[in-house]
């Protein structure tokens, strides 16, 4: 059958808008010169050398650290939630999953910004704290606020894939384990948890990747002082104009993600399902 021809327009599109841009970034990352004038480009690895200095390594470390912590928090908060939902009756189940999706319909910048109203100096939380007779807390513009923003924005990405794996688990497996005398904890550790690993993996990647590369959450909730690697990339491309350095950082970010993916995909047997797990 000649049906495969129908994909040719997209293959062309992909070449222009996915493959070539990545090669351009790669090209920029290994050259230096005036970003706007290609005749000044010279091969050089200075961009990478510059990245591996304490200033930028610290930024990378901070980004990875925050992303890891927020991924762990999402997993700890999300797994029980996914389990609770998966045990409900089908109608209530769909309803609850929908309730996880609905917040995403409100602009995410606005939702993140709304935390300022809740946590700011004159915010709702501090209002209660001061009414109770305590000193107002400093809740905004620190790494805890950034963490909160990450967990808030990415929690659904953890719950949904885990949930979709949990509902597919064959109930008779659990019954069999119970019949054979396993208690609840044992059933969970030996049956449910191992079977839900693909969902956990999808969840982890779906939380970690946007968390490690965000520049919006850190800007809105961390103030100008709180820099993550995403902020540095943004700065290089939009303000400083050093596209070479910005590109090299994008490449590093990409490699970082690819390594994460390679590690996690080892645990994921259902390859074709991978990124589609959420939906």
């Amino acid at each position, binding site marked *: 059958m000649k049906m495969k021809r129908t994909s040719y327009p997209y293959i062309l*599109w992909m070449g222009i808008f996915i493959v070539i841009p990545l090669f351009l970034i790669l090209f920029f990352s290994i050259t230096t010169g005036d970003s706007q004038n290609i005749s000044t480009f010279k091969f050089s690895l200075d961009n990478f050398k510059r990245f591996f200095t304490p200033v930028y390594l610290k930024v990378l470390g901070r980004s990875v650290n925050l992303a890891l912590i927020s991924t762990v928090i999402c997993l700890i908060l999300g797994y029980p939630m996914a389990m609770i939902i998966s045990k409900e009756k089908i109608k209530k189940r*769909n309803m609850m999953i929908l309730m996880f999706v609905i917040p995403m319909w409100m602009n995410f910048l606005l939702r993140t910004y*709304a935390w300022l109203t809740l946590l700011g100096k004159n915010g709702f939380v501090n209002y209660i704290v001061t009414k109770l007779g305590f000193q107002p807390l400093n809740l905004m513009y620190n790494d805890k606020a950034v963490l909160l923003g990450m967990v808030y924005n990415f929690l659904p990405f953890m719950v949904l894939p885990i949930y979709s794996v949990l509902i597919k688990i064959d109930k008779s497996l659990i019954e069999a384990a119970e019949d054979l005398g396993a208690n609840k904890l044992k059933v969970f550790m030996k049956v449910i948890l191992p079977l839900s690993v693909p969902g956990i993996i999808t969840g982890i990647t779906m939380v970690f990747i946007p968390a490690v590369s965000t520049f919006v959450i850190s800007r809105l909730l961390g103030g100008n002082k709180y820099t993550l690697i995403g902020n540095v990339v943004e700065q290089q*491309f939009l303000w400083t104009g050093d596209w070479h350095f910005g590109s090299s950082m994008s490449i590093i*970010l990409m490699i970082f993600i690819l390594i994460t993916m390679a590690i996690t995909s080892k645990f994921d047997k259902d390859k074709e399902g991978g990124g589609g797990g959420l939906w």
Partner: protein
Amino acid sequence: MVNKSLKKLYTFLIFAFLYAPIIVLIVFSFNSSKSRGVWTGFTLKWYVELFKDAEVLKALYNTLLIAVSSAIISTIIGTFAAIGIYNMNGLGKKVVLNLNYLPVLNPDIVTAVSLMTLFRFLRIEFGFITMLLSHITFCIPYVILSILPKLKQMNKHLAEAAMDLGATPLYALRKVIIPEIMPGIITGGLMAFTLSIDDFVISFFNTGPGVSNLSITIFSMARRGINPVINALSTLMFIGLLGLLLIINKRTDKNQGERGGLI
């Protein structure tokens, strides 16, 4: 019993966490003071001012226009691409599938700056066109990923049977394959629309002077304080979408059709 109420409490806390900012936004769209955090009384003036605010209305127009066009274009390209990829085999299929995953897996910011570099390189003027092209680019992979499973579920021999019975490939495509994978196409289209409407990072890097969507407007407002008009607009959009969802849910309940189309 304790266990059950514990579960209820946990569920309540998680949903309270998810919905707290949304409730704040909705409540403060009725606040008569411009500053956030202080409640000074009920008003509808922001809803009136919304329809006079040219900047916000223009941004809304751009957002919707880009979301609708990129959803339509990426659904068309994506549908044909998915059918093509499904019929490919061997190394070619593997390469295309993996390349297709790139925009899904890559951080937004990397996709954004790589497209920005491309447009600069090709000397395309930044503006509406570049924004639309980049939206289509990041939407197509999701469309393909939601159609491919439907193609796999379809009986392989259906299209062949149609063609054996004298249908041209195009006719078989139109009358057999497309109707079979329709749920996937609809899911993909809706997903593209949602992704496009909510996107900030890719739009931010690939827009030009004077062209702004809602996200960009909100981001630039965030420094000087967000105009409550935006709260009013998002409240309206949120309620609109919620209403749409209820209608769709009612209809699917009646038809007992395939659920979860929106998720």
